[in-house]
């Protein structure tokens, strides 16, 4: 019989970073724990050590001065219901509200959804389109990672083994839309997610749920015709085939949904 796993519950960020540096990938970080529990229930993982962030103060805030600061441990529901997010980053509030069910949103966190790098997610595409940055800490230092550099592939990030996401910072939102295309049930995960945001004249279109990382092509975004941008995105992406649609089908939908996102964005 194997021993029960260890549960490490630091009570300060410094302690958490110390433990992360010491145990690295051998200690599985627990934020909300939803994704982790799914893997546990399926017996795909059996960690010997857990590093829980629950008791670390200062990680659950949802506040704004000029920028929005979302603590890594802020839940999806906290973002969805926050008055300041609803008022000043309404597309972000609506996008977090689209994820799964209220139950999941009560548990799953901002940091978790990014660190898990699950491709079939909604928030990463919009956060990338809004120019968000992940604030990452390690023992004795830290850095900021632009969202487009954070997720590197299916369930892979550019985080080092001793790093933790502590916050996500989002610049003021200009015009922004997020479209979640579900090919089947209303409860389905996205088949194609399209985020389009404009700020200071710069357009960002980011397509999520179709490949390992959110798909952004700055040079295509310099074009002006929604249909053309849609077609070019469809050509540029090599989509995945899964239960929600084949690669070919996704390609067709990408073209349509990108066009529609831009039409929505520019309809005033």
């Amino acid at each position, binding site marked *: 019989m194997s021993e029960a796993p260890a549960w490490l519950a630091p009570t300060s960020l410094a302690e958490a970073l110390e433990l992360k540096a010491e145990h690295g990938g051998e200690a599985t970080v627990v934020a909300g724990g939803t994704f982790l529990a799914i893997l546990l229930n399926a*017996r795909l993982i059996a960690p010997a050590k857990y590093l829980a962030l629950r008791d670390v103060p200062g990680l659950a805030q949802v506040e704004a001065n000029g920028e929005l600061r979302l603590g890594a441990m802020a839940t999806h529901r906290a973002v969805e219901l926050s008055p300041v997010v609803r008022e000043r980053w309404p597309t972000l509030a609506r996008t977090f509200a689209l994820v799964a069910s209220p139950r999941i949103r009560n548990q799953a966190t901002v940091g978790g959804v990014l660190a898990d790098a699950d491709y079939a997610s909604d928030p990463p595409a919009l956060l990338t389109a809004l120019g968000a940055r992940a604030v990452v800490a390690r023992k004795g230092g830290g850095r900021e990672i632009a969202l487009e550099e954070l997720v590197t592939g299916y369930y892979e990030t550019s985080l080092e083994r001793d790093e933790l996401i502590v916050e996500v910072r989002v610049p003021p939102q200009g015009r922004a839309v997020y479209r979640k*295309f579900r*090919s*089947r*049930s*209303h*409860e*389905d*995960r996205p088949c194609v997610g399209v985020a389009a945001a404009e700020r200071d004249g710069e357009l960002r279109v980011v397509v999520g749920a179709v490949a390992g990382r959110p798909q952004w092509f700055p040079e295509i975004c310099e074009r002006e015709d929604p249909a053309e941008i849609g077609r070019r995105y469809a050509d540029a992406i090599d989509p995945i085939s*899964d*239960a929600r*649609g*084949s690669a070919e*089908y996704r390609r*067709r*939908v990408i073209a*349509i*949904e990108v066009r529609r996102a831009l039409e929505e964005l520019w309809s005033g």
Partner: protein
Amino acid sequence: MADPRVTGAARYAEDVQLPGMLHARIVRSPYAHARVLSVDASAAGEDVVVLAPDDVRGLRRYGCQIKDQAVLALDRARFAGDPVAAVAAATPQLARAAADLVEVAYEELEAIFDPVEAAEPDAPLVHDTAAISDNDAAYFDLRPQSGTNICHRFRIRHGDPETGFDEADVIVDETFQTAGAQHVHMEPHAALARWEDGRLELWTGTQTPFNLREDLAGIFGIAPEEIRIHCPPMGGAFGAKTFVRIEAIVAALARKANRPVRCVLERSEEWLTLNRHPAVIRVKVGARADGTLVAKRVWCWADTGGYADCGPGVAQKMGFAAPGPYRIPHVWVDSRAVYTNLAPNGAFRGYGQMQCVWSSELAMDLLAERLGLDALEFRLRNVLREGDRYCTGEEMHDVHFADCLEAAARGIGWHDDARGKGLAVVMKGMQTPSRAGIAIERDGDRFVVRCATAEMGQGARRAISLLAADLLGVDVARVRFPDPDTHLVPYDTRTTSSRSTYVMGLALERAVGDLREHGERGYGEIEIPGGLDPDTGQGVASHHWHQAAAGAEVRVDEETGKVEVVRLHAAVYAGRVVNRAGAELQNEGSMIMGLGTALLERIDHADGHITNANLSDYEIPSFADVPPLTHDLLEREGGEIHGLGETALPPVPAAVGNAVASLGLRVRELPISAEAVLAAVDEREGVRA
């Protein structure tokens, strides 16, 4: 006192526990078709009870219609997931760990996954022989085709279609397909067994206690009376909890362990236990220019998976309902239950009718279109009416197909504008023949109903209690209906086919009469005769018919293929409604399940492995998927109770399919995926892929 379902006090089969019980875990073949060479459980541990092939080799084969199953896959595993061994340990976790340590050596064999290919004479055989079961569930003459994978063949021979087609001005000849589906009852399969002095006692979620008892008696070589089956309420069943599922393995483990053994399946295992028959159905139907149907030829291939279960019965019912409720002078049907190397397929709400209604009703709309006739008018012209003979030779009585169609059409505003709208009508047979017994006991100023009808949420026990109270002249609060126990209840065919309220209602009348005469206990039984010749399809298919029609209105996003149902209406002939709230729930539930079939549900597999065995990849309808939905319960004065458990399901997918087709978008497969609709848009627009 509040209903236990809202207080958390509800208890289901999975809640039954006994002190000292062990927990079972099944070891399953990873291969779709393989010889089982050896099973080595030496690493499993001392505190673990192992059931290996040698432990069950001496037990007899079983099967509700074809005796093709052994307690464990002995010579070969016939689907990925086929049980080859089992273990029991003190906790479910220990059992899982032990199961992972059992080493099984296999030799892979050629596998087959398509029922049309599997039906060919040169296909690799899933079974070498076919023994017809003597179980009461084998209620018709079976026709296994020796040397092939066809374990039953049902035919209707009525007139001569070739002559008929000569008279036709328009002929439609199309092939349709329906995917496999999972029942997704929320409570998993659960069973607990214990032995005492050579007698077996079992608590299990089952709809078929007497059929189960019969098969278990055969397996273990004991008298049926030596087996006692308790039937706790089930958290849903929909046909999945029928006949022998996990009970034989659990009983065999309990006997070896000399301790009670319980098994509760994990969700992923539910796709390896019993599913719905995928089907390929070819329909050739002809009509004269004036819209009169003249001939119909139907070929059905029902994929029954690695073991027949009640596949023969499903193929037969699929076959006899395939012509649809229409007057057609020449009808031939060939329906086959075919083995493949997939998980076994069996009873699923609708029992073969959904598949043939999909095919038949889509073909009808195609025919209407080519004739230039309104789809409703075309149906009304040909629909069976009171006194008509069906192609089985039976005279139709209590016939209301036209009323159902007209009500369905009204329900979706057909006469205002038919574009984007579709209709479908179903004739569904009720288990025929069958028999049922019921007893009523006086208990002070109260009464106890002894009846084998199982509770799976359908409310039949409530309805039967209401009928009893009515007959006895007392308030229903004075009628108690305990969970069925085969030692205490009279024989009943089974709780399937939407038959229970009706059949038990008839038996009840006799039981109450008997009680009045004899004082303390009254017994009544009913036997419903009938049946069909499997070679000609002649006889009585159904004592009375379940009848319904559905209408659907859709909007299609032609750039993505996404179908949105904006209105759904079903009109169901109920005859006489006993429990109105229960009737509404059954209609609504059937329609919603029909929507799942229409748009969402499909078992995906690759090389025989199911790739979407979880509730995220395999989706059932949620709240937000339900469109504005209405229904009618058609009754008439003096009408017979007609079961409602399934009737509103089969016409829903066809109504949706016809609605989509009314936009010029041809789909032939279920579920109707957005991708398929997009392909249909391309086809209509003449766009090359």
